[in-house]
């Protein structure tokens, strides 16, 4: 099919190395999560099962895209690549954020270590990395650079780029989701309205890029694949963003519940 997609990197040892290096962080984080679960059990503390399930599913979604046949197909087929983007950069981060891993780790760690971690989270650099504007730029801005410059075709030739970009897509996706949905303890908090506006703008940036890809295929991508890939990005992104919107609104709804009439008002309201 396409000459440059079959460079040495795809079939050679380079691609194997990329798979190993991209798998490793997820295996490690999975092991840490399981250890934390075990520690909590020994402490006889409870941890909701649905959170663990979401974490495992999230890691699975990410792993599928960076290792095995899927990763191979994604190399020569833009539609598969785009499905990979949705899984690695959007769905896996969302599921993992909803699993509240930080809460679990803080519960499992000894108090001293947990305090150190919260200290780090309160620091300025941590605040920058969880600022919605910065995470949106890292996430959506990164995608714009990837698909509108020659970076996308270069990614298929250089193992290093392949690894960095895939890692970036996941990390940026996670920070983006975590900066909008406060499931874990968050120190540099922004108001609901602020986060909503940023979410709408980021969503718009994602949608515009999808249609742009439809009309302007990235370097080395056949028109038919760019069109199908762009549409997949558009509607798939919608589906996942819909969940982020839902949870953000749900948290907002809960935070603004009528407090003064809690004793009587709510019950009468529900009987209507």
């Amino acid at each position: 099919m396409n000459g440059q997609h079959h460079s040495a990197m795809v079939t050679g040892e380079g691609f194997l190395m990329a798979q190993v290096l991209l798998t490793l962080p997820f295996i490690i984080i999975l092991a840490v999560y399981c250890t934390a679960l075990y520690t909590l059990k020994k402490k006889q503390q409870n941890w909701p099962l649905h959170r663990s399930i979401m974490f495992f599913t999230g890691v699975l979604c990410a792993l599928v895209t960076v290792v095995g046949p899927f990763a191979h197909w994604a190399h020569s087929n833009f539609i598969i690549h785009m499905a990979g983007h949705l899984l690695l950069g959007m769905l896996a981060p969302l599921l993992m954020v909803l699993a509240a891993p930080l809460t679990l780790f803080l519960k499992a760690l000894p108090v001293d270590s947990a305090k150190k971690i919260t200290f780090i989270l309160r620091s300025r650099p941590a605040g920058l990395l969880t600022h919605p504007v910065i995470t949106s730029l890292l996430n959506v801005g990164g995608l714009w650079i990837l698909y509108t410059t020659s970076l996308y075709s270069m990614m298929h030739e250089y193992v290093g780029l392949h690894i960095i970009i895939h890692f970036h897509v996941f990390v940026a996706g996670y920070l983006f989701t975590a900066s909008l949905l406060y499931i874990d303890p968050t120190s540099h908090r922004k108001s609901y309205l602020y986060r909503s506006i940023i979410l709408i703008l980021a969503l718009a940036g994602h949608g515009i890029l999808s249609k742009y890809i439809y009309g302007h295929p990235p370097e080395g991508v056949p028109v038919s694949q760019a069109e199908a890939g762009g549409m997949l990005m558009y509607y798939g992104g919608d589906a996942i963003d819909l969940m982020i919107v839902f949870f953000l609104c749900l948290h907002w709804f809960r935070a603004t519940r009528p407090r003064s009439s809690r004793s009587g008002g709510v019950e009468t309201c529900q009987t209507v």
Partner: protein
Amino acid sequence: MAAHTPSAEGATYLSRNLWSGFLFGIGLVAFLDETVFHQLLHWHHFYDKSTTNVGLVSDGFFHALSWFATIGGLFLFADLRRRNAVAMKRWWGGILLGAGAFQLYDGIIQHKLMRIHQIRYVDNVIVYDIIWNLIALLMIIIGVVLVRRTRHGNGRGRG
């Protein structure tokens, strides 16, 4: 909460009914546009070669806004319900206003000026345009009438 006099709270709820409807109206019409005209009828095109850049940006922004507005508007409605403050007529006024305003923007600015896509790819598209925008105007007029009639809180009904 204690600082709120009953009338001030009532005014807040009146505007919240309007906003909830307005947001949901935008979301509803955008959702119908997507399901009926894009997916079912295949009249609208996902991308049109004559789309201007500003059209692409506007389309992306309003698409994102409408997604948020659908869910946000419904959560606002749920909030009014739990406060027992739903003003049904006013809410409907808001819906028609939001739906009409968005459809008019879509029909005149986005379809015609920014050329994101046409309603249908046929010869006499002007007929479709006129009907499209007339419906939008009609929704706005009914919406305005409903909202004006309920501005003093007489639009309250059980939710």
